[in-house]
C-alpha cells in the first residue's frame, strides 16, 4: 500500500480479445466501489500506465493483478514474468489465461501455417512482396523489434506461478464481483483468502446442474450443428442432438447459453479432478449415441456408429475449444503443410521448422 493507503489494482491483457475487460466493467455500479477501494496502477485498457512504470514499481507492489489472455508471444511471456514479480496476488483471469481458450486452438496447427494464411493466402490480403512479420527489421533509423510469436500457445500457469484462477470466457460479472468482495474483505478486514491455487468465481458442479431443462435418458441418432436445427423449447439440447458441453464443464455461469438455445461451449473449463475436459466430453458424447444393438454383426455395428459420428463436425475442436493448453496432449503434431496429419510430409518439400 502506498501514499493514499489504498491497495493497488492491476489488470493486463496478453493474447486475448478484450472481453474480460468488458466483463469487469459489466459489474455495473460496483466498478465505482472498486475505484473507491483500489488504486489502479496498471490497466492498459482503462488507464494510461506504461510498461516502464510497472518496471519501476517495487516487487510485490500490486496487491491484486488480474491477468487475462494466453501466452502467445514473447511480449505476453515477458509481461507474465514482470507482473508476477510485481504482484502479491496474481490471478489467471478468464479462460485464455486459465487454459488457453480460443487462442490455443492455434495449437492444432503451426506458426508457419498461421503466418502463411494470415499474411499470404487469405483472399482479402494484398501482399505482393510477400512480407512476413520479422522480429527484427533494419531501417535507416536503426532496428525495429516486434514480439516473437511462439509455436505453441500456453496458459499463464505454464509460464509463471499463479495464485488463483477465475474461469470463464469471459467470467460472469456477478462472479467477478463476488471474488472482488472476498479480496476486499481480506485486504480491509483481514478475512482469509481461499487456499492458493483455488478456482474461484465458479462452482464445483457441472453446468447441467444449473441448467433449467429437465434431463432424461439420452439417445442420440445424429448430431446437429447450431445452424442445422431450431431447438425445441424446454428440452435438453444434448437430447436433441445439439452438441452441448454442459456435462463436462464447470458451472458458475448460470447455464446462460443453453437457456437461449445455444449448447454450452465449455468455457468454464473442466470440473475439479478432471485432467482433460475434451476426453471427458468425448466419453460422454460416445456414450449417448443411441444406435446399435449387442446382437448386431460387428461390422454392422461399426457402420451404424460411423454414420452418427459423421454428423459430429470437428470433434477435437469442439471438445478442446477452450482447454487446449491444459489438455493432456497440449498441441497437435503438425506436418509441413500446417495440417495435423498422421501421414509424414514428403521429404524435401515444406517440412521446415521456422522457430528452431
Amino acid at each position: 500500500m502506498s501514499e493514499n493507503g489504498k491497495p493497488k489494482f492491476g489488470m493486463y491483457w496478453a493474447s486475448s480479445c478484450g472481453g474480460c475487460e468488458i466483463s469487469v466493467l459489466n459489474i455495473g455500479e460496483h466498478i465505482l466501489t472498486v475505484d473507491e477501494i483500489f488504486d489502479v496502477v496498471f490497466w492498459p485498457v482503462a488507464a494510461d500506465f506504461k510498461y516502464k512504470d510497472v518496471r519501476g514499481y517495487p516487487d510485490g507492489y500490486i496487491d491484486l493483478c488480474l491477468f487475462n489472455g494466453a501466452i502467445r508471444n514473447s511480449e505476453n511471456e515477458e509481461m507474465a514474468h514482470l507482473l508476477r514479480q510485481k504482484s502479491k496476488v496474481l490471478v489467471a483471469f478468464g479462460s485464455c489465461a486459465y487454459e488457453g481458450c480460443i487462442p490455443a486452438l492455434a495449437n492444432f496447427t503451426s506458426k508457419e501455417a498461421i503466418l502463411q494464411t494470415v499474411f499470404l493466402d487469405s483472399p482479402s490480403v494484398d501482399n505482393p512482396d510477400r512480407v512476413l512479420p520479422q522480429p527484427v527489421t533494419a531501417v535507416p533509423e536503426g532496428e525495429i523489434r516486434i514480439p516473437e510469436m511462439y509455436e505453441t500457445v500456453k496458459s499463464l500457469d505454464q509460464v509463471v506461478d499463479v495464485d488463483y484462477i477465475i474461469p470463464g470466457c469471459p467470467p460472469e460479472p456477478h462472479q467477478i464481483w463476488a471474488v472482488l468482495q472476498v479480496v476486499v474483505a481480506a485486504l480491509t478486514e483481514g478475512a482469509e483468502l481461499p487456499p492458493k491455487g483455488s478456482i474461484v468465481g465458479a462452482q464445483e458442479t457441472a453446468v447441467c446442474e444449473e441448467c433449467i431443462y429437465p434431463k432424461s435418458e439420452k439417445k442420440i441418432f445424429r448430431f446437429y450443428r447450431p445452424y442445422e436445427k431450431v431447438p425445441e423449447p424446454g428440452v435438453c439440447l444434448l437430447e436433441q442432438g445439439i452438441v452441448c458441453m454442459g456435462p463436462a464443464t464447470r458451472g458458475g455461469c448460470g447455464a446462460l447459453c443453453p437457456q437461449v438455445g445455444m449448447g454450452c461451449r465449455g468455457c468454464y473449463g473442466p470440473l475439479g479432478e478432471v485432467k482433460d475436459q475434451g476426453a471427458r466430453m468425448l466419453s460422454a458424447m460416445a456414450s449417448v449415441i443411441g444406435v446399435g444393438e449387442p446382437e448386431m454383426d460387428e461390422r454392422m455395428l461399426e457402420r451404424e456408429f460411423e454414420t452418427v459420428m459423421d454428423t459430429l463436425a470437428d470433434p477435437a475442436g469442439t471438445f478442446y475449444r477452450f482447454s487446449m493448453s491444459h489438455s493432456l496432449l497440449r498441441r497437435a503434431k503438425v506436418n509441413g503443410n500446417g495440417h495435423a496429419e498422421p501421414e509424414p510430409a514428403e521429404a524435401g518439400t515444406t517440412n521446415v521448422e521456422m522457430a528452431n
Partner: protein
Amino acid sequence: MMNNENFEPVIIGFTCNWCSYRAADLAGTARVKYPPNVRLIRLMCSGRMDPTFVLQAFAGGADGVLITGCHPGECHYLEQNLKALRRTMLLKRTVAQFGIEPERVRLVWASAAEGVHLAHMITDMVEEIRALGPLNWPQVAALNGNSHVPVLKKAATVSEEKVEVAA
C-alpha cells in the same frame, strides 16, 4: 516416418477382467508367445476405459494403446463393450486431428478362450506400431514453447516453396 527395426514400441493394453485378461492369461499358460512390448492393465470392463487413460498414455510416451473387451453381445455388464467401441471410434477421429495415427489406438475383442487370437493381435499391433515409428509425444508437447530465436529468413523461403508446389 522411420522404419526402425531396433525400435521397441511401448504399448499400453487395457484388458477386461472377464474375457481378454483371461485370454492373455490363457496365452501364458498355453505358452503361446507374444511380444513383451505390451503392458497390460486390468480393468473390470472395457467400458471402464476412459479416453483420458489413452491420452495420458500417449502424453506419457506410449507409442500405442490397445483396448480389449468381450465380443459384442457377450459383455459381463450387458453392453458396456459397445460403449468402449463408440469411445474408441470417436477417440480415433479425435487423435487424428492431433496428428496421431488412428492405428495407434486399437480395439480388439477376445473372449476368455481366445488366448491365441489375442496373442496374434498383440503381435500384429506391435509390428504395425514398429512400422509407424516412435510417437514421442513429450517432445511434441514441448515444441518451441519458449523459443526466443527469430523466425525469419527460413519463413520466406518456405512460403515461396509452397507457392511453387501449389502452382
